[in-house]
């Protein structure tokens, strides 16, 4: 009972944080904060975003069920799609709060330093969530990877959205 409340309170807390950031007054300080964010802070934001979406979908049976039904080729395709969407969400699509790549920084630099590293963080969080909910117990490596990639898709979107919103 207490465990359930503790688990539920985590996404709720992030949700409250999101609401304050989105619905509250936009101060000049928060706008400035978005511009002058360090590399570590950007990665941390991605981790928070991945946790927020991940905690909502990881306990469901469907995530693991999907990974049973998908063959490795479709999972590789899903992995690549996650990477592309994560990158496009922040850089290509001109949304308010989207990061403008600073002049002189190439596509590969941004892709490797932010999207790829962010995706690895997302996968690590997915793995942690699956382990927390006991999905990795007695399960083979291939199946764990496959469940991680499937759960990684919503988490990657969450991570990219966190960079735009927060």
């Amino acid at each position, binding site marked *: 009972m207490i465990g359930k409340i503790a688990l539920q309170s985590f996404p709720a807390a992030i949700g409250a944080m999101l609401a304050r950031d989105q619905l509250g007054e936009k101060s000049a300080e928060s706008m400035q904060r978005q511009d002058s964010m360090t590399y570590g802070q950007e990665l941390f934001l991605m981790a928070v975003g991945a946790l927020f979406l991940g905690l909502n979908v990881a306990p469901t049976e469907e995530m693991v069920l999907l990974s*049973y039904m998908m063959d490795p080729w479709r999972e*590789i395709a899903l992995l690549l799609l996650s990477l592309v969407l994560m990158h496009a969400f922040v850089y290509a699509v001109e949304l308010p709060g989207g990061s403008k790549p600073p002049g002189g920084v190439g596509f590969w630099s941004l892709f490797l330093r932010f999207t790829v590293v962010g995706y690895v963080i997302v996968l690590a969080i997915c793995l942690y969530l699956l382990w927390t909910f006991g999905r990795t117990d007695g*399960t083979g490596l291939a199946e764990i990877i496959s469940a991680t990639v499937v759960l990684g898709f919503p988490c990657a979107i969450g991570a990219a959205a966190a960079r735009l919103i927060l």
Partner: protein
Amino acid sequence: MTPQDAPAPRPKDSATERTRPPPQPADRKTGRSETERATPTSPLEWVVAGIGALLIAAMIAYMVQYGLREHGEVPGRIDITVVETQASGHGHTVRFQIRNRTTATAATLRVRGELRSGDRVVEAVEAEFDYLPPYSERFGGLIFQQDPARFELRIIPTSYSEP
């Protein structure tokens, strides 16, 4: 009046001295913009990026070789080992481990346990597993009314469906 007028010019002078633009802020400003331009390419970030790219490449490579190995496997090689037998309120519980040694997933896997005495089946019970993923193990239990120690115990998988 005159004694008050006399000291007045002194603070004014000191005030103008204070408001005189110091040369430092201008230097600091240019310094900051230089560091801002320099931050995107720190060597540590590139090391992290390299490790990340390697990890994802390794994952894709593993999945490709797994995909090449998989085709056409049927979840036939299923091992069952008895872990322990305990007498409980409703009879005797046989706890067993079931292990999938193929790359296929078995859904609604049925396991049948029989107590035999020669050719005669004394008692038969069934257990069902929702999913048995590839190279994974699950635990289950069969509850017999008779004591399994007095008979020959046989546990076999009988059916499954493909998810």
